[in-house]
Each structure stands twice: as structure tokens, then as C-alpha cells.
């Protein structure tokens, strides 16, 4: 990991420490500069009221130039939210995690975007191609070439 990415992540960690994470977000673990875990809830009157999810961030060596790998944790304890852009294996189809990533974005801004993506959901359903995708999916969603072909939803 380069000096720049370490420094940048150290700053983000300090920011979390000083100001605390945004409402509905909590740090589960951030013990190194490779993998951080957060819990995420959508507060207010939404389809996900009362549900809690776990988000995993993995940072490439040239973060923030390259985007982090962000997935919902799926194991005995956690599940992925049922959402038209979230696969049952926890992979997320969100343009800011792919070709719309910008190095000025941060862990907190990704959390906030995902929170609002959940908050604006009007129908709980899996992506149409969920079963096929999950069967073929690479371990890292960054190896998937998602098509963000509809901006209107």
C-alpha cells in the first residue's frame, strides 16, 4: 500500500473518530488499512425499517485513485438487503463503485450513497438476473462489468 493511500485512510479514520460516523452508520472494525466493516441502517419510514446490514470495504493499494471494493456481508449473521441493485451474495451494482468512482469520494460518502439508495427503494426485490449472476460471480464485484444502463429508477 502506498504512502498516499495509508495517509488518506488514516485521515478518514480520524474524521470518523472526531466527528463520529453519520446517523445509522457504525464502525464494526477498522483495525488495518485493508478491510473495514460497518453496520448500516436506514432510519425513518422506509422499506428497511428495523433492519441492519453489514458493509465490508476492501481498499486497493492505490486507494483513493482506485475505488474500494464494497459488498454487503453475507454469512450466518448477516444478509444482503433485498433491493433491485443488490445481489443475494452481497454484491452491489452502484455506478459510484464502478465507472463513476471519483477519488474525492470517501468511505463515509459511499455509506451515505448506499443509505439513500436503500431509502429510496419502492419495492423489495432482487435484481432480475440474481440467480444467474450469483452462480457465475467472481469473488470481488470489481471483476464484474456491471451495466448501469438505467438512470431513471
Amino acid at each position, binding site marked *: *500500500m*502506498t*504512502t498516499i493511500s*495509508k*495517509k*488518506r*485512510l*488514516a*485521515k478518514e*479514520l*480520524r*474524521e*470518523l*473518530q472526531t466527528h463520529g460516523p453519520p446517523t445509522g452508520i457504525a*464502525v*464494526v*472494525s*477498522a*483495525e*488495518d488499512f*485493508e478491510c473495514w466493516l460497518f453496520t448500516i441502517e436506514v432510519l425513518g419510514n422506509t422499506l428497511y425499517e428495523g433492519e441492519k446490514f453489514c458493509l465490508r470495504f476492501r481498499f486497493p*493499494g*492505490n486507494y*483513493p*485513485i482506485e475505488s474500494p471494493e464494497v459488498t454487503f456481508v453475507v*454469512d450466518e449473521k448477516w444478509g444482503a438487503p433485498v433491493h*433491485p*441493485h443488490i*445481489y443475494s451474495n452481497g454484491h452491489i*451494482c*452502484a*455506478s*459510484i463503485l464502478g*465507472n*463513476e468512482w*471519483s*477519488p*474525492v469520494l470517501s468511505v463515509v460518502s459511499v455509506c451515505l*450513497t448506499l443509505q439513500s*439508495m436503500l431509502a*429510496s427503494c419502492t419495492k423489495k426485490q432482487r*435484481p*432480475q*438476473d440474481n440467480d444467474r*449472476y450469483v*452462480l*457465475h*460471480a*467472481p*469473488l*470481488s464485484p470489481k*471483476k*464484474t*462489468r456491471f*451495466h*448501469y*444502463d*438505467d*438512470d431513471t*429508477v
Partner: protein
Amino acid sequence: MDLALALAATGADDVSDPSDFPESFGILRTLDRTLRCPICKDLFNAPVLLGTCGHSFCSLCIREALKEGEKKECSACRVPTQESSIKKNIVLEESVEAYKTARSTVLALANDTASRKRRREDSTNGADLTPRPKRVKRESSGQDVDLGDERLEESEDSEVEIIENSKAPVDCPICDQKVPATRINAHLDEGCPHESVPEDKGKGKAQWAILLGGPGGKKGAKGGRRGSGRERDRSSSPPPRPLAKVSYHTLSNKQVRGLLQDQCLSESGDRKQWEQRHAQWITVYNANLDSSKPKSVDQLRRDLERWERLKARDEKEKEARVSRVDAKGYEKSQDEHFAKLIAQARASAKGNPNTIRQGASSEKPIEISSDLEMEPESGEAAQATVHIAL
């Protein structure tokens, strides 16, 4: 979970940040934030301006971003741009340099004022004889702000503990040398030169003097002299020109090696490494041209070697991590893993996946996993068409 502990464990807990300033000094936090690059969040280093939109970044940061991104656009506002729109931002660089010189002093003063205020509030009816500073109520924010002017007269007895703390040496995460905390960023930026930890003479008076331009304020004068020296340097030799980018796919191996030789760069490794090395060289070389205190070309070459070493180490660690994670997953749910393996094997149109899978049978879970990891790249990458709201 202790974030402070996590920071300390990485040896990178010395990074400066707007939150260094006490909460009651929101105005200073804002000032500090505006002088930081939106990409690395550090104080600007060789800042440049994008002529296409007017946003500023460190030269290296925006060059790396333009190199990596699929689209050539401003990282802050997404307006399309290109390398040729990168222009030196001289005024911003001067502002940042001046601010860097003043920062530790301003920080100490702010912390000092804040801690006095706390103490004053703690002590009941006038037991504390410290004179009360003027206080202004800011209409807009409703925030209390202590004016520093009375503090100036009190400089005799001001305790600058915070400065003392910030001078404590820290271990450099790269070379493990002891480096004064106040110098660690510059140390890293300069590529780990040898450091001698200086005597700690950060007494209040000297700090005040620096800020007021008094006898201790040699830094300001030196800055001025450096400025004029720079002008001389520039007039004596024509400014070096930026290196042009290369599209390697049209070149033969020999030609790529020739490019490396032209720049006195190592020819070790394979073709992919040559191209990466040369592309990175162009980026750091051009970014260095935007600095008013450019590094020597030799130093840049050493930086490039260090970059390659770190990159190689990073990739190795990543591989190890994938294996570890998967080994864990394997122990937890063997059945699920095998179900997935079978699915993968069925899905794979290439090679003879079934034999490969059987070869890597149950004693070697790690190999199975790395096999899985590789598959989408070697075979058909998973494709998904979904709707997106972002």
C-alpha cells in the same frame, strides 16, 4: 473497537488534519480544510489548476486520477478535461507554503486559548487570576470565538504543551526511522531522506516570535530568500518540458526497452512491468515539474523504485489475504464451497475444469479458492445487466 489504537498500530497517526484545531475554532478548521487537496486530503503539494473547470489538486494526485480513470474528467466536478489543461497554481502554492510555516504556531495558540478557556470555566468565582480575553459572539454561527490579541501580551507564561507533543518523534511507516511528527509528511514526500531528530526547543516565546516575525522568525526571511533564488535558477536554464504520454501497444519490446533506456530506468521484469514503470515515470516526472521545489531526477528514480517495491509487496499481501479469507470460509462451510465449485465448474466453458477441481481436492483448500478467484478473469467475466439509480 479503538480507532486511536488502530491508527497507532499502523504508525500513520501523525497525519495532520483540520480536526487538529479545537472545536471552538471552527474558523481555523475551515481555513485548514480549504488548503487541502480533495483527493489525498493533505495540504496541497505542487498544486495545479484544471483550466477546464478551475478546480485545484496536487499535481501528482490529479495526474494519477486521470491516468487511472476510464473517463478523463475533473475528480471534483466531472467536467471533461485532459492532461494539457493542467496548469501550475502558483498563488495557491505560495499560500499553502506560508500556511505550512505558520500552522504549528497557529495550532499551538488555538489549543492554548482553548485549554485556558476550559480551565477558566472549570474554576469557580475568580480563583483563576488569568485575565479574561475579549470574547466575540459571532452572529452567524452563534459560536464563541476568543480573540487572540490579549493572549499575545501573555506570551511570557503561555504553555505550549501541544507543540511539544507534536514534536515527539514517530516511526516512519516506510523506513522505520524516528522522524519528528511535524516533519513526517515532508519526510514521506521527500522519499525518506536521513533524519536527525532535532533538540526540542519549542518554547512559547520562540513560537510567538515566528508568528510575529520577530527575532525567532527566521523562517519567513529564509522563505523570501528562497523565492528570489528560485527566480535566478529559472532564468539560468530553460524550464524542462513535460514528457509525452506513450501508447505502448503499437511498440515492439525493443522500442519499449528503448524508452526505459532513454530515461535511465531499470529494464527488469516483463513487458507489463516495463510499461507500468514507464507510465508511472511520466506521471511523477511531469508532476515534479509543477513543484516550485522539484526533486532531483535521481531522487525521482529512487521514488519510482520504492513505488514498485511497495506495489509488489501490496500485491503479494493481497494474494495472501485472499487465500487466508477463503481458507477460513472453507473451514466454515465446506459444503457450500463445494456447491459453488461445482457451479463454477459447470459454468466454465474453458479448459477441463472438472479435472482441475478434483486435482485440488480437500487437503488443499487454499488452492481451490485461488482457483475460484482466477476463474472469471480467465474465462467469461460475469456479466450483469441491472438498473441503477445513482
